[in-house]
Every structure is written in C-alpha cells, then in structure tokens.
C-alpha cells in the first residue's frame, strides 16, 4: 500500500493532448517517487472554472462540483480529493464552503444530484497537490529524494492568483507567499524571494477574450523575472503556465521585447531533481524549451 492515498481530480486541461498534459505526466512521475497514490475519480466532470459565470448561475455551478464529490464518495469513500489545477481546486473548495454554510443550497444540490442518481452524505476535504506536498509530506521528506540537485539554476517562483487567493496555502500570506521559493531551494536551485510579480494575475481567461489586457500583465511578470536574473519561471497553475509561456512571441511583437524564458511546473523541477528523465518530467511539453533542464536531466544521477 502506498504511503499516501487520495481521490484524484485531474481536471480538463490535464487530459491527453490538452494544454496541461505535461503537468499530469510530471505529477505522475513525482508521485511515484514520493509513494503517493492518486486514484482518478471515475467520470469526473469540469468544475465550470471561474470564467463560466455568465451562464453558470449559483446552483448549477455548485451542482457541477458536487457531482464530483458524490462520485468520489461513492467510489473512493473516505479519501480526500486532490486537484492539481488551481481552478479545479478553487471551484471545488468554493462549492464545499458554500454548501457547508447554507442548508438551502445543500438541500437544492441534493435534489438536483438525484437526477443523476447521486447523493452526498459527507463533505470531502479538497486539497491542492502543493498542500499535500507541504502539509502531508513536508519539505524534509520531499528533499530526501533529491539525487540530482538543480545547482546554479536561478528560478523565479510565480505563484499567480488562484493557488494563492482567496483560499491559499495555510500559513502563507496573500501578498508574499514563500512556499514556492522554498520548493525551488529544496530541489537545489536558486530562488528569487524578492521577485515582486510572484502573485500578479496572468490575465486568466482574458488572455483568450481580450489578449491586449492580459498580455500587458504577462509582460510585467516575464520582465521582472528577467530583471532578477531568472533563467526560468516556475508555477503551480496550469493557466498561469500556459498564459505566461505561449504568448511570449505575441508580446515580443507587441512591445518589441525579446522574451524567450521557459515556464515550468514545480513537479517538472522535482522529477528532474529526483533523477527522472526528460520524458518523465515531460520536458518535451514545453513550447519554449527548457534547455538547461534538459541538459541536467541527461546527466548521471549522484547516489
């Protein structure tokens, strides 16, 4: 039996061929090393994300998330739900909070769930993968597995919004969370605690609908990473990762900049530091290649 077991809510962007499929690959490799067992909630559905608000309404949005709770309770009783995506985690946690605090909303949700032959008896705990790493395993346990430290690599820890607000990770501040910097140090790289854009918004869904507004924000995030001498950016959020990485070409055209900085997931750094291959870390999933990490991943492991 694995040391830690959870019901897993991977989310739409993690699926095969989707925008954060490299995140899932690296999380799977990371969990193997850490002896964490994730069992996918059967037939899970989309959380609705924050951007669905025009049509979602209040109850339909919570019912959508509650269906995942019900499926988890039915198939994986007693297990906490773990999400890797910031939006999935936030959406599910918000629903948990609202249903817990309103008997009417809870009763209405139960009535709607009946239509899908489901019910909720107990409200599950909703965790983000970084909470599992920090709270259930801890930094010492995470560091134990480092066999190939990312020595001399300077990395800007970009936390973004939804992993940080409104819930965030316990004990961290909204304005200056430090856990990501600690994770960077943990894998043997050099962190930039004074990186002042670490909680700036990437523009979220506006990167699609009103790109000029989102790209103005992304420009600040990338520019500051360069100003601090970063070689790459690391983030815990799939939308932050995509937005900050894939529009750098368009930003260069718009502002005359020469951005070309890789944007990684914490799990990718950990897999490389844990001795995994470039494939285990899904480095082939980067649009802007992380050459330095590829080189390190090709090196033999120090045992």
């Amino acid at each position, binding site marked *: 039996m694995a040391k830690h077991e959870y019901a897993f809510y991977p989310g*739409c962007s993690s699926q095969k061929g989707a925008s954060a499929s490299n995140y899932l690959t690296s999380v799977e490799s990371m969990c193997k090393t850490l002896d964490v067992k994730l069992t996918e909630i059967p037939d899970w*559905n989309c959380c609705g994300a924050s951007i669905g608000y025009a*049509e979602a309404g209040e*109850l339909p949005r919570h019912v*959508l998330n509650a269906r995942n709770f019900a499926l988890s309770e039915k198939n994986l009783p007693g297990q906490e739900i773990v999400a890797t995506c910031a939006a999935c985690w936030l959406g599910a946690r918000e629903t948990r909070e609202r249903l817990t605090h309103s008997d009417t909303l809870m009763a209405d949700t139960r009535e709607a769930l009946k239509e899908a032959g489901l019910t909720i008896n107990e409200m599950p705990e909703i965790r983000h993968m970084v909470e599992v790493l920090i709270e259930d395993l801890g930094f010492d346990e995470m560091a134990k597995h480092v066999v190939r430290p990312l020595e001399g690599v300077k990395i800007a820890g970009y936390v973004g919004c939804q992993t940080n607000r409104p819930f965030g990770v316990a004990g961290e501040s909204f304005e200056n969370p430090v856990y990501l910097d600690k994770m960077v140090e943990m894998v043997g790289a050099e962190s930039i605690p004074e990186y002042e854009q670490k909680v700036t*918004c990437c523009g979220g869904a506006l990167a699609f609908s009103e790109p000029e507004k989102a790209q103005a924000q992304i420009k600040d995030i990338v520019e500051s990473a360069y100003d601090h001498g970063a070689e790459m950016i690391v983030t815990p959020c799939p939308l932050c990762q995509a937005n900050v990485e894939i529009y750098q070409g368009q930003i260069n055209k718009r502002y005359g900049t020469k951005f070309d900085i890789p944007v990684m997931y914490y799990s990718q750094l950990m897999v490389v530091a844990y001795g995994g291959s470039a494939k285990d870390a899904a480095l082939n999933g980067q649009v802007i290649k992380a050459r330095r990490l590829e080189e390190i991943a090709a090196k033999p492991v120090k045992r």
Partner: protein
Amino acid sequence: MSANTAVADKYRNNFLKEIEEQVEMGDWVKMCMQCGVCSGSCPTNFQSAWEHPPQEIFMMIRAGKREEVLTTTSMWNCTSCYNCIVRCPRKLPITHIMHGIAEYAHRIGMAPKMQPTRFFSGLFWKNCTHTGRVNELKLSMGLYFKDGFVQGIKNGMAMQAVALGLVKARRLNVMELFGGHKCKDQKGIQSMLKKAYEIERSRKAARMAG
C-alpha cells in the same frame, strides 16, 4: 414583457433591493465603505482602466444608476484574480459580486452583446457542460469565429504560431474537433443541471414575489 421590463417594474426606484434579491452575493453591496482598495488592487483596472471600477459600481447601485450599471462592460473585465476579495477591509466577496452582477445583466438581456469576455464566458460554460469536459480546440475556434467567418480566419491566422507551438508540444490536438474528451454519464449531467436551473429560477421568482 421582457425579462428586463418585468424586474424593472417590480423594483421601480429601488435598484439596491433588486441587486440584493436577484444577484448572487448582492446583499453585500451595502457594506461597501468606499475606501477604493478594490479598485486600486484590480490588475485590469490598473493596466487599462475599467469604465467603472468595483467601488464606483457599488456607489452607483446605491444611487440607483440601473441602466449604467447593467449595460457597462466593467464587470466583464474581471480576471477572477481574487485580489479585491483578500484585500477588502470589510470582507466583501467582490469577485463574486462582480460575477453576480455580470450574470444578472446577461440573464435579463442588458449586458453588452458583443463584449468579448461576456461572449467567451457563455461559450466556456456551454462548452464544458455539453459533454462534461472542456474541449479546448472547439473553445478557441468558437471565440475566433465570434465576429463571422472572415474575421474568424483572420483571428486563426494571427494565432497560428501559438497554436503550432502547442501542437508540436502535444498540448493541442486537432482531432478534438471531431469529438474529444467527454464524460460517460452525459445524460445524468444534463438532467441534473436542468433541475438546478429550475430550482434556481423558482427561488429567484419567489424572492421577487415576496
């Protein structure tokens, strides 16, 4: 009678009451003390200026500026970054209030029709509830073709380099156009959501009648 005329008639000169009863988290609006921290913390207001930032919207609601509030593009500039929520000294759930007012304006047909984020928001919800999971390719295509076929092709061309990068990295699958990821129990999802909308509608109607 249109949805808008019905509510406008009912609430007449009490726009604050209308917001309190019909908008998610609307009963928080009167708690705003006009400090402006939300407006100063908003990334899109900071970068490109909302027509009416949140603090201003709250005061306009109390001043009964119904038409101006419901037809503005402002709320649709929200990126859901939650900065305003965590900084508000009176703990107003501002992000949710902004989403709530936007949803209400959309529901009664007052929201600006071609505002791109309003369009994308509706598109996203339809996309993800259609099969239970997001189809990223159809979502992007739906947005590009918002202003017709010719503009759609132009938008697609402008995004070519971005899309190609993602395809090469295996993070965008062109086959998604012919199906893609989906839930097994789509029927269950549809009937459960239908029921949820019914309940929500009847609760809102009861509040209006009461």
